[in-house]
Structures are given as structure tokens and as C-alpha cells.
């Protein structure tokens, strides 16, 4: 009994310790600049939504003057870019994952591994040559150029996670569907894709997380997908 309550107290302390930074960030977001910088830090202060207003309107009014911040624009850019690049990666990656899972073809494993190896490469390695090359062909500072580059991250992720799901589904299920009288394409859309849906959802979330934390939206799939994805790698 005592041991149990001690354990509870210990757990509480651990949680408080690790949650404190987040708590402190929330507290700071409700303070003015002066209050944030004051020493000793204040725990009692008149809360203000000034910081949030500034982020949304794009103008931060301080005692010195007005500062323009492009937060909403950048957020929108991030959202647009990650959404578009994930869509492109899905259109390319899901059929490719199916092909790698179901068919044996020459150099198939090599191709799949090469795509995966792109994830090992340090981004800095390709940064300089790529930006020079992009400037030459006029792709620098364009959405298309960025979406293209994002494929280095998203495509292997989607390919490898979704492939595992296709491999886990028995091909007999698709065969049965075809013997029933459905075309290959219909079987792909109505059987293969729905069966791999948790994998596809996990891959989408994992590729979006680096740029956006809209993950809560897909929480059910996220938890299932992340845990499965972690096992499958």
C-alpha cells in the first residue's frame, strides 16, 4: 500500500520534471517580452494574448516599434508544401510499393534499397550541389523544386512502410477477388489499398511530422500506424 503510493508520488515527480519545459513555454506565451526577461521569473502576472495576436496578424507591436513577422505565411507554405509533396509521394510510392511487394523483377531489391539509402544521406551533402544546379535550371525558390527535393524524404518512407503492409496481406485475397470477376485495377483499388490503409496513414503522418504537427487529427491511425511502423521500419 505504502509502496504503491510512493510509486505514485515518484511517477508524479517524473511527469512534473519532464512536463515543466512545456508548461514554461505555455506560461511565456502569455507574458510580455519584459515579463519573460525579468529576473527572478514571475509566476503571477496579468496574462496577455498579445503574442498570439501578433502571430496571426503578422505585426508585433513593441515599445520600440512594429515588427513584421511572416508566421502565417510560412505556416501556410509549410502546410502546402508538405501536403503536395506527400500527395506526389503517395501517387508514385504506393504503386511502387505494391510492385516491390508483389512482383520479382530484375534489380528490384537494388532499386528499393537505393531509394531507402537516400534517407541515410546527410542533407548537407546534397545541399550545395543541388542549390547550385537548381539555380542553373531555374528551380530555386519554387514550390516544384521543393516538392521534388521533399521526395527524397517522403518517397522512401512511404515506399518502405507501405510495402510491408502489402507483403503482409495474403495475395490469395487479391486472387480470390479476380477469380470473382473483377479486373486487376479494381482489385488494387478495392482490396490491396484498403488493406494497406493503416500503413499508408502511418507513412503519411511520418512524412508530414517533420514539417507539421497536425498529427492529432489522425490520432487513431497514428498510434496504430506508428507502433506498427516502428516494428516494420
Amino acid at each position: 500500500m505504502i509502496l504503491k503510493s510512493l510509486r505514485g508520488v515518484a511517477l508524479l515527480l517524473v511527469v512534473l520534471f519532464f512536463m515543466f519545459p512545456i508548461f514554461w513555454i505555455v506560461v511565456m506565451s502569455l507574458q510580455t517580452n519584459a515579463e519573460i526577461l525579468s529576473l527572478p521569473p514571475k509566476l503571477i502576472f496579468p496574462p496577455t494574448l498579445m503574442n498570439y495576436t501578433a502571430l496571426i496578424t503578422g505585426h508585433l507591436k513593441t515599445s520600440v516599434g512594429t515588427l513584421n513577422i511572416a508566421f502565417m505565411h510560412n505556416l501556410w507554405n509549410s502546410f502546402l508544401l508538405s501536403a503536395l509533396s506527400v500527395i506526389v509521394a503517395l501517387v508514385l510510392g504506393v504503386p511502387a510499393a505494391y510492385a516491390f511487394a508483389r512482383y520479382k523483377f530484375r534489380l528490384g531489391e537494388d532499386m528499393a534499397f537505393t531509394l531507402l539509402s537516400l534517407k541515410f544521406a546527410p542533407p548537407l551533402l546534397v545541399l550545395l550541389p543541388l542549390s547550385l544546379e537548381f539555380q542553373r535550371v531555374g528551380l530555386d525558390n519554387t514550390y516544384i523544386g521543393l516538392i521534388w527535393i521533399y521526395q527524397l524524404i517522403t518517397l522512401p518512407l512511404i515506399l518502405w512502410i507501405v510495402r510491408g503492409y502489402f507483403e503482409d496481406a495474403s495475395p490469395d485475397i487479391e486472387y480470390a477477388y479476380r477469380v470473382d470477376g473483377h479486373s486487376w485495377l479494381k482489385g488494387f483499388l478495392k482490396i490491396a489499398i484498403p488493406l494497406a490503409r493503416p500503413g499508408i496513414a502511418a507513412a503519411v503522418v511520418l512524412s508530414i511530422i517533420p514539417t507539421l504537427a497536425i498529427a492529432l487529427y489522425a490520432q487513431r491511425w497514428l498510434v496504430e500506424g506508428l507502433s506498427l511502423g516502428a516494428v516494420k521500419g
Partner: protein
Amino acid sequence: MSALIVTSLSVRYGTHHVLRDVDLDVRQNERVVLFGPSGVGKTVMLRAIAGLEPGAVGQVVLAGRDVSRDPPEARHLGMAFQNFALYPHMPARENIASPLRARKLDTAPIAAKVKSVAELLRIDHVLDHFPRQLSNGQKQRTALARALVGEPKLILFDDPLRNVDAKLRYEMRIELPRLLAKRETAAIYVTQDFREAMAIGDRVAVLIDGEIAQFALADEVYDRPATIAIARLFGDPPMNLIAAHGQARGSGTLVRAAGLVFGFDAAPPREPVFGIRPEAVMLFSEPETGRVAAQIVAVTPMNERYLVLLRTEDGTELVASHDTPPPHGSHIWIGAEPGLGALFDAATGLCVAAAPSSEEIAA
């Protein structure tokens, strides 16, 4: 018109020939069992007939229509898979309706047909359940209903009772022939269980190493296996195979095996082997002419039968199988049921003759 004619069907995986020039025909409403040990190409053969083996070479004619080049969806077959292959994200009703949906039937006839086949298979109360909510038996029946619902002329069964428990297997073994007869459907049934083959098959095709080693009525395969390999595979316990001595007598052969003597209508083979089914080994408590003394080594009850391991005086071991316990005492006399037994040539592996005449033991 035959339900199916397969002519010189071959399938190769790389350099490995899985099937080699296989011929097979299935008559209307006939049940043909494709029997063979595992890994022998039975499933590949079914898949090739269904159009699921892109590399298959040969001709497949279904109900008079050459479908050799047709994709699976154009062949109008039913198929039941070993692992059921139900669609996990659809309720049983939609699983069964799938072949009808493919034909773009209206909602009302689909509902009616699904209901009727579900009632036939006694799963009408679980039609709204998803596959994961079904028991193994119900899954089995759902898969069967899906194969039957489109009223195909031919259904392919890929060892559908392999993964179900003994009770269910026994039930389905009795029920399936009745169902198929009722729906007037021909069937090819893959199994490696000879009991299932005997219970379900009108004819049995024995597939060994990618070739059909024998294709005959089930009883004939049982009584007269075409090769020693089939004799070893078909039957549980398998046929007793005893090295024998053969001696020409007129146009026939006098065969002596384990002290028993038989006459066969064939020239003596090079290396004679006498085969006798365990049920045809008779046990007696008294000696008589034509009987041979033997010792009971072990008695094992199996499926309400008694398997008796015997050793004759010349050291030959053989198994007898009867539904009554063997006579008391370890020393008994054995004889052969008249007319049962087969003569093989170990040099060629082929059956030379069957149905021997009983002979008096020459002194």
C-alpha cells in the same frame, strides 16, 4: 461437353519444371480430386486453371470455351482457398456477393442469391459479421458460399479443409459432395489426405513431381495403384509392400510373398514386389492351408479401427487394419482376402497386375 479439358499444361519457375505437360479432364458435375504430397504442384495447377499463373503454357478449355489466354476475371470459375482468402474489410454478405457485384447485377437479385446460398450453408445468421468475427467453420462456409454463389460450371478447391479442425473436416467431407450435386457444379479438389480424396472424388488424379502418375476412379487408385510411389502415398496406413519371389507359370506368374502364394495374369517382373492393403490382411486364431503363422508385434487403435503390426516367420513385417480387435495371443495365422493385392516391379516402379487368384501353398 466436359466442364474442363486441360491439354499439355506446363509451368516453369526458372529452370524448375513445376508442371510438365499435364492433361486433365473434368466431366460435367464430376468431382475430380487432385492428390499428391505437398510441394508437388497441385496448387500451381489450380492457379494455372484459374488464370493466376502468368507463365503457364498449354491449353485450358472451360465448358467448350478456350480460355488459355483469358485473365482470371474472364474465366467464370469459383475458387475456395486454403486460407479462406476472405476480404477482411467487408462483412460476410459482401464477401459472398462479390462475384455477383462483378457481373453488375441489381441489388434485389444479389440479395436473393446471397440469402439462398447462405441458407444452404447455414450461415444466414452471420451475414453482417466481418471475417474476424466469424469462427473458422463459418469462415470456411463463407468462402464456400462465395465460390458457389455465381453458379460457376467448375469450382476449384485448394485444400479447403486443411486448416479446420477434425470435426468440421468430417462434416464438410460429407456435406460437400451433396452441395456440389445440388448446385450441379463440377469440381477439382486438391488434397493430400487420401480419406478426403476417397470421400469427395469420383475420380482421382495423382500428381507426383509435376506429372499425373495416375488418373482413375477413386476405388481403382486404391485397389490398383499405378506405381509403387502411389501405393506408398495413397492410403493410411499405406499398402504393405513386400519383396516377393516370382516364377513364371504359363502366361502368368506365381508370386510368393511373406509365405503366401498368389497367381497373377502377367509375365514375372524383374524385381517383384507384392502389395496388399492392410484391410485385406486377414487374421485367424487357427492354422489352415493357405495361412501363414505370424506374431503380433503391436496393436494400435486408430479411428475406431485396430492397426496390428505383424511379423511372419521369414521376418517380413506387415500391417493389418480391422474394425474388430485381433485374436488373443501373440501367435496367430494370416491370410489374404481373395482377389485383393497388386504386383509391382521395383525395377520400373510400375504396377504389373492386380486382383490375384488365390493359390494353394506349394510345398
